[in-house]
């Protein structure tokens, strides 16, 4: 078992955002999580990445329990995420944004920083090479020295993904990576998702772009009012009357 969410419930005061939700994400696949606005998708991501402590339920990653760990510990276990509304480090270059993500692999201590700079420089060099490789993978290496927030929107989305990959995750949680992208950029994104998958990283995808979800995800889980209402392949989900019902009369249409 790779990533398992067991009977997750998340309550804020009187509001139940996620209600007894369970899912299994298979290793090496792209797993989609869809649902109308406010159905609890982002909340699930926030619980997964350790921002919220679940009200009830447990989460296991590679057989080990991760619910209750601090966010940075979860990242260290191999879960990384992007944000729906871009959250790049605004005072830093693209490259530095990635280097922050690599930081937790750092082995040099504060004492070495102060008294043995050679070791630190060696480590920095290693990080730098890895970061440049990632930027190459996402085809934004030309922007390495630019201020991250000065890039065009579509490229900032890619920096977000690159930064998450810099933490060297086993699973990548993507929160609406196609939001705000035009058709060409979305096509590019699909290519990138393929490359990431090929590099051995599993993807858990929250997305509103149904075309993208239907074409890339092998398994899709549908959420409504915090509850799982359907799960299965693209065609199975598309033809499920309950799913159609959930989306009918709302702004999102399958």
């Amino acid at each position: 078992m790779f990533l398992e969410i067991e009977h997750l419930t998340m309550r804020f005061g009187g509001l139940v955002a996620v209600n007894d939700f369970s899912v299994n994400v298979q290793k090496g696949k792209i797993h989609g999580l869809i649902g109308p606005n406010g159905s609890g998708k982002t909340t699930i991501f926030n619980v997964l990445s350790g921002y919220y402590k679940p009200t009830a339920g447990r989460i296991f990653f590679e057989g080990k329990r991760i619910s209750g760990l601090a966010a940075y510990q979860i990242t260290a276990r191999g879960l990384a995420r992007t944000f729906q509304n871009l959250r790049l480090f605004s005072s830093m270059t693209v490259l530095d944004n990635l280097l922050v993500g690599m930081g937790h692999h750092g082995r040099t201590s504060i004492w070495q920083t102060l008294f043995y700079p050679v070791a630190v420089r060696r480590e920095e060099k290693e990080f730098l090479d890895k970061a440049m490789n990632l930027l190459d993978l996402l085809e934004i290496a030309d922007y390495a020295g630019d201020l991250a927030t000065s890039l065009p929107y579509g490229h900032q989305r890619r920096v977000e993904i690159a930064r998450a990959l810099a933490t060297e995750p086993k699973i990548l949680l993507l929160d609406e990576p196609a939001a705000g992208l035009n058709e060409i950029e979305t096509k590019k994104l699909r290519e990138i998702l393929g490359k990431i998958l090929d590099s051995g990283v599993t993807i858990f995808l929250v997305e509103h772009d149904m075309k993208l979800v239907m074409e890339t995800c092998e398994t899709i889980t549908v959420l409504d009012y915090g509850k799982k209402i359907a799960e299965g392949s693209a065609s199975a989900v598309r033809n499920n009357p309950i799913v159609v019902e959930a989306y009918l009369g709302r702004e999102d249409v399958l």
Partner: protein
Amino acid sequence: MPVTSIFIQTLIGGIGIGSLYALVALGYSLVYRSMGLVNFANGDIYMAGTYFGIIWYNGMVRGLHLPYPVAFVIGVLLNAVLGIIIERIFRPLQKLDMMFMLLGTIGLGYVLDNVFTIIFGATGFAVNSPLPDTPIILFGIRVLPQMLLLISVSALLMVGLQVFLAKTKTGKAMRASAMDHDVAGAMGISVNRMNAIAFAIGSGLGAAAGILAAPIVYVSPTMGAAVGLKGFAAAILGGLGSIPGAIVGGLVFGVLEAVSAGFISSNWTQAIAFVVLLVVLMIRPSGIVGEITVEKV
């Protein structure tokens, strides 16, 4: 004297000094909730207001000795005007980072402090109470009449403020403006005007606090520093931006100080008050009355 009487006496002293903190705390909270500005010059505005009132009463202007209530009203009004002027100066600060608000408002505090030092001298003076100096003795408890005046007028002002905010048109407009600048603007409320009124009221309350406390404390250009810091701590303790919070916070802070001074050691009074503040914030980061907000991701 029995221990309970001493305790009650200490308590009354605490409520008195707490009323002072509460009025100053209201100055912070009114301005904060109206324009999101943490005004660290508030202590100096309190000092200015004290002078604006006391000089008419104390014969410092052409030897005039106006009656205390008249001097009180003049002081409050003059300080309200000062507040309106300061609002205009601080307008560019609203959108800046906390660090800059801190320093910008402190800069103005410096200016006020030193202008008053130049005009009135660095050495302070004591002020005679308009009421008798002999304590009233009730059930074996001794209380200064001025202390009772401070407590009762402060209470009146606080009730008055609540009624003003809840019932009058301007008060309601101020609340709307504090809640959402854009919506208020769309409704035809001038946000800048509401901010100016908040500043005027906050400064007026500071002046009232200072003039009422002047016969008990000691008037000097540096009197604002400690009271300003404690007023801010009180506002935070109650929940910054909350009107009832400022009042509760001020009273709690005053009583804490008085009790710890009376029963533990006056040397550690300030430290104890701040340690309590720290503990409260650790348990409830939004203060006693403030709303708890969930961090948005």
